[in-house]
Structures are given as C-alpha cells and as structure tokens.
C-alpha cells in the first residue's frame, strides 16, 4: 500500500505558500483541523483564501489566522460569533463571500466527483443569483454553480490509516469528507493514526485516493461553542 504519512502539521503544510486557496473542514469549531491551523499560524502564511463553512471564533479555529491577518478572503455560509472578523470586514481588510451552505457543500462534492458545475435552487431570486446562469428544469428555476478549485484541503478525521483512508466521528464529519475529495492536495490530521488493515473497508468515509498527506495530530482541544445541557435530576 501507498504510504502518505508525514511527521506532523509543520511538515504537512510546509509547501502552503502565500496567496493559496485552502479548504478547511469543520462546522463551527466541530471537526476543525486544529493542528494544521496552529501550524499555519506559526508559519505565518498570508493572503490566504479560506473556504470554510464558518470562520471560527475570536481565539480559536480560523479566528486565530484572522487575528494574524493571514486571511485575505473568506468563503463561508455563516461567519457570526467573531468580533475580529467583523472589525476586519468593516474596515475593508478582509473580503468575504457568503454562499448558501448547501451550495458550499455541493460545490465541494462537484470538485471531488469531477463535475464542473451543479444546479441548485438555493438563492434563486436573491442577491446570490446575481451574475449567475439561471436554468429551468421541469418548471423550477436553478442556479448553475461551479465546482470549487482549491489548492489545498485540510481536514480533521477521527481515525486514519497510513494510506490515507479516513473515518470521521459523529457530526464532526460535516464538511470534512467532501473537502477531502475536493482539494488538489489534501492534508488530513487524525486523532488516531493506524496501520493499514486496522480499518474496516466498509466503514471508510474517505478513501485514501483522495488524501495526499496524513499525520497523527496531538493535543486536541475540541472546544465547544454552545454548551447546552439538561439538568441531571
């Protein structure tokens, strides 16, 4: 089997240069590639375009990169809960492109499945439709939306093997598998890196063919954004 293992996050992101387009998995702070984000902050790569459903919070996730002014443009569906983001946006330091969440997801899928464009009704008749081709199928209007073209996809999985097969845990799956498919180069950090043969082929969410580098992550903080609980009796 082909071996994709690199030593750590620093090695995994070493060739991500200024000005590149990155996809970053996760929904809110759930399932984000914490190690790679930390390494990107350390490396200080700038002028990045980041495709990610959200933009982290002030002191975690992509928020850490925003604070260091590493991000030129965010492509997201929802960017709340981040004061520094708001400040940079209002001051014109940061560009933002807001995309319906399903369109964001499906444009990832399209890239991973070699489909140059897809049709979705989301945004028809709204400002999202501006400049886009509208096409009617069977009486309903759809927008044509293009596959993403990202230099790197950076994802976080629960388990992965040395050949790059990935398994995600619970709702930390979210955008991770579809971004993993969509990157020209895909980097996966995992909570547990195992040898080939340890993962059941029927349980693999992302086949290794989509993954170019994998490493054993460490010190996962897994911060909770909205801790909601029921009282114990």
């Amino acid at each position, binding site marked *: 089997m082909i071996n994709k293992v690199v030593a750590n996050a620093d090695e995994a992101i070493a060739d991500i240069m200024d000005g590149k387009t990155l996809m970053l998995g996760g929904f809110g702070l*759930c399932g984000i590639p914490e190690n790679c984000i930390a390494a990107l902050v350390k490396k200080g790569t700038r002028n990045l375009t980041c495709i990610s459903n959200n933009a982290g919070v002030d002191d975690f996730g992509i928020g850490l990169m925003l604070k260091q002014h590493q991000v030129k443009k965010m492509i997201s569906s929802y960017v709340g809960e981040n004061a520094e983001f708001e400040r940079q946006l209002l001051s014109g330091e940061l560009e933002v492109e807001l995309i*319906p969440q399903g369109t964001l997801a499906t444009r990832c899928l399209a890239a991973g499945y070699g489909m140059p464009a897809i049709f979705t009704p989301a945004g028809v008749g709204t400002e999202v439709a501006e400049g886009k081709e509208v096409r009617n199928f069977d009486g309903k209007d759809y927008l044509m939306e293009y596959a993403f073209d990202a230099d790197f996809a950076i994802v976080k999985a629960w388990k992965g093997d040395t050949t790059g097969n990935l398994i995600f845990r619970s709702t930390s799956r979210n*955008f991770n*598998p579809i971004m993993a498919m969509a990157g020209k180069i895909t980097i996966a950090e995992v909570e547990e890196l195992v040898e080939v043969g340890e993962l059941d082929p029927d349980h693999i*969410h992302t086949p290794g063919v989509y993954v170019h580098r994998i490493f054993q992550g460490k010190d996962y903080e897994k911060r909770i954004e909205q801790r909601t609980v029921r009282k114990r009796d």
Partner: protein
Amino acid sequence: MLDKNGIAKRIAKEIKDGYYVNLGIGIPTLVANYIPDGVNVVLQSENGLLGMGPFPLEGDEDPDLINAGKQTITTLPGSAIFDSAMSFGMIRAQKIDLTILGAMEVSENGDIANWKIPGKMVKGMGGAMDLVASAKNIIVAMQHVNKAGESKLLPTCTLPLTGVRCIKKIVTELAVLDVLPEGGFKLLERAPGVSVAEIREATAGKLYADDDVPEMVID
C-alpha cells in the same frame, strides 16, 4: 396572544406521524418540546444528522456532536450521520417533509427575508437559502410585528430576500395564516382572545379573512 412557546405548541400540531422535520434556530427549536405522544418524527440537523435528540445531561456533552446551531446535543436510537453534501442533498431532493424557520419578513406571494439587514453586520445565510428553496412544506414561526411595531407580513419584502414564492404557512403570536397561491394572506385561525381587526391592523399585506375565523385550539 401567544408567547413563543404557544407559537411552538401550535406549530407542533402541524407535524404528522412519520415526518422528517428540520427545525431552524429560535422558536422552531422549541417545537421539538411539543410534539404529541404517538407522533413519531425524526429531526434533521443540516450539519449532518438525522435522529437528533435532546440536549445531553450535564457532563455528557460531546464536542463532536452538535446541531446546526452549534449546540451540544444527543442522538436518538436509529440516528444516522452523514456529510454536508448528503445533508443538503436530501433537503434538495425534498426528502424532508417539513421545515420550520423564523423570518424577518414574509410577503404576500410567499417571499421570505431572514438573513440580512442592510447596514448591519451580515453573518451569512447558513443553510436558510437551501432550505427555503428546496422544502416542499415550510412553516414560518415569527412575531407578527417587529420591535418597531411594523408588520412583518408585507405586500413585498423590503429586506434582501432569502427565497422567493416558497412560504405556504405562517404562525405568529396572533394568528395562523396561509399564503395563497394567487397571492395574499388567508387568515385561518386567531390566537385566543385576538380579534380579526387586531390581526388586520398588524398585517400590512393583503389579508383575506372569513366572517367567522376560529380561535386556535392548543391542547
């Protein structure tokens, strides 16, 4: 006049046995508390879950298990996890029977605005545009008037749209209304103690009301 829980209770009566339901943030979330016994529903959370359960017991929070509002939640037996493409795939393919969401404005022809206020920080539409454009059955849960006392049921929306001609039913603290296919709001039920005149007063868009509009029955 209903409080938020009253609105949620009334909406819960629209949910039929066997429904797959997507609940938006705010009042829609409360609907889950009022689903009648014997009505089996599966709640979808568009971040990739079918079979959402209640909040976890204190100490049982799992950072890998959240809903679309980023709240820690639980799963029920029979739940399934999937990626965001499949999640919106099933939404777009109309496999979700009912979507309940909030709104800032709804127009006579079923347009909805609920994501952007010009001049204010725009946080994004999240999954709302996908949901309203795709759902076969959407109920809007909202206050009838905004904080400035202005009607949210309008001839045309003044705010940037989330979707066009997609809303079919609205439940507010005052009333249950249908959006008619030919345009206009049809008053179906009054909240307890609320008169047709009061509803008409609070509705800027065209309102159709029969002489005898029944009062809501909430359990």
